């Protein structure tokens, strides 16, 4: 599954009130690649993800998934939002939240059961299936959202600042959890973050966006060895070098 974004542009409103959000963006994502997208705050990262996931029509340009144009949310894609508290259904238990998107797939009951329990186990929440999301901590709620995305068996997982609203320790745990499920479930990940360290730590490549109207400032290849480790990887000279490089790329324009 390859994703291609071709000359994507998005302008909100029209006439005198037209606000260009994305000027022009083109990039390709290879199968099983981990792409991080960083940029100054308010730079249209969320707009980009909404266009990529078919939630928002682009003003011009196109998004292609295996050569086919995306006009509505594709079946092979799952999205994890920053606001876990608002994207989980509070009237459903954890298990129901994860199972809900599977209904449309009309899987045999046993297969659906297996997907639900396997993905909840992968995020370490097997013991919380009967809880409601609001009975869990923020980090656990985001793990439910990740389990829901995994059970859906996407080939591309799109994540919009998924760890921005949790504390630092939980955040490091979630990063490592995500890296392990990325390896295990063989998915392609498009990961938006405003945290440069996080982008360097997680990604194969980093797309550095400019301020609005957004273009790609630079594409940075991250050739740090995997598996990555919160302590050892971050001690590498290469990590510090990349981190400084990306930081300067973002600051250059703002």
């Amino acid at each position: 599954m390859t994703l291609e974004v071709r000359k994507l542009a998005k302008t909100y409103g029209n006439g005198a009130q037209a606000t260009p959000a994305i000027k022009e963006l083109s990039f390709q994502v290879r199968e099983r690649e981990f792409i991080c997208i960083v940029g100054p705050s308010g730079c249209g990262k969320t707009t980009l993800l909404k266009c990529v996931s078919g939630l928002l029509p682009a003003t011009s340009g196109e998004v292609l998934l295996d050569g086919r144009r995306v006009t509505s949310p594709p079946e092979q894609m799952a999205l994890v939002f920053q606001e876990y508290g608002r994207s989980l259904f509070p009237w459903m238990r954890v298990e129901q939240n994860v199972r809900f998107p599977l209904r449309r797939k009309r899987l045999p009951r046993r297969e659906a059961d297996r997907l639900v329990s396997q993905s909840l186990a992968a995020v370490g929440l097997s013991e919380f299936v009967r809880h409601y999301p609001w009975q869990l901590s923020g980090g656990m709620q985001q793990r439910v959202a990740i389990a829901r995305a995994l059970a859906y068996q996407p080939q591309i997982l799109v994540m919009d600042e998924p760890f921005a609203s949790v504390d630092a320790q939980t955040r490091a745990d979630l990063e490592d959890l995500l890296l392990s499920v990325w390896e295990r479930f063989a998915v392609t990940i498009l990961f938006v973050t405003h945290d440069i360290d996080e982008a360097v730590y997680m990604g194969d490549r980093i797309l550095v966006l400019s301020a609005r109207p957004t273009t790609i400032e630079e594409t940075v290849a991250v050739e740090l060895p995997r598996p990555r480790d919160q302590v050892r990887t971050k001690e590498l000279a290469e990590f510090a070098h990349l981190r400084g490089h990306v930081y300067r790329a973002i600051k250059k324009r703002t």
Partner: protein
Amino acid sequence: MRRLRELGPQLLVPALVLLAWGVWSARAENFFFPPLTDILASFRANWLFARVPTDVVPSLERMLAGYALAVAGGVGLGVLIGSFRLVRWAAGPAVEFLRAIPPPVLIPFAILTFGIGPQFKIFVIAAGCVWPVLLNTIDGVRGIDPTLRETARVYRIGALARLLSVVLPAASPRIFAGLRTALSLSLILMVISEMEASTNGIGFFVLQSQRSFAIPDMWSGILLLGLLGFLLNAGFVELERRLLRWHRGAQASALEGA
């Protein structure tokens, strides 16, 4: 035992009121305020349970029929109006006008249209109760978090599942607020509708007792209506407490996190 102790003050106040009323009315000479013991005696003679099949059951049947129609129409139209901006734009002024009409004024029209059977009463009850349900449903549907809607879209949830498992539950706290207002309104409209062109019902009984100077009977009907309203509301609150447990939990945890 503990529950009883908590309920103590709540039971004490009505007991004191009844006691004061009893003592005062036992000595009063006023014909319109008969002794409480007379009222209770006629309450027992009328409502335990001689007139239950002839008056209480028909009243409640009409009330529930009108209420059910209002709920079905209010929630159905509310989801439609709340979901589509164009419908909202188009229907807005008409809704505002229609809901401004006091429902009892529809009685003459309803009698002309439906005759003097139960249908006109059901119509008046439904026509009055539909507004709180409708307006709250519209607000509830409009107020659904965009992130929830987007989540449903991303996971390609079908229209029916989206309606039943996302839109209605998400709007249900508001819908329930409307249902509760409509419930007390339905009791009021039931009584009013029975004071016109009727041959049975609690409202009819109260009016008839007043006209035949059966004052204790009249008071017993008023007492019954108060009791019914209280019990209906208590039952509704209990139902809401169970069905919206998730809502209270989610709100409490959101406050904690903020």
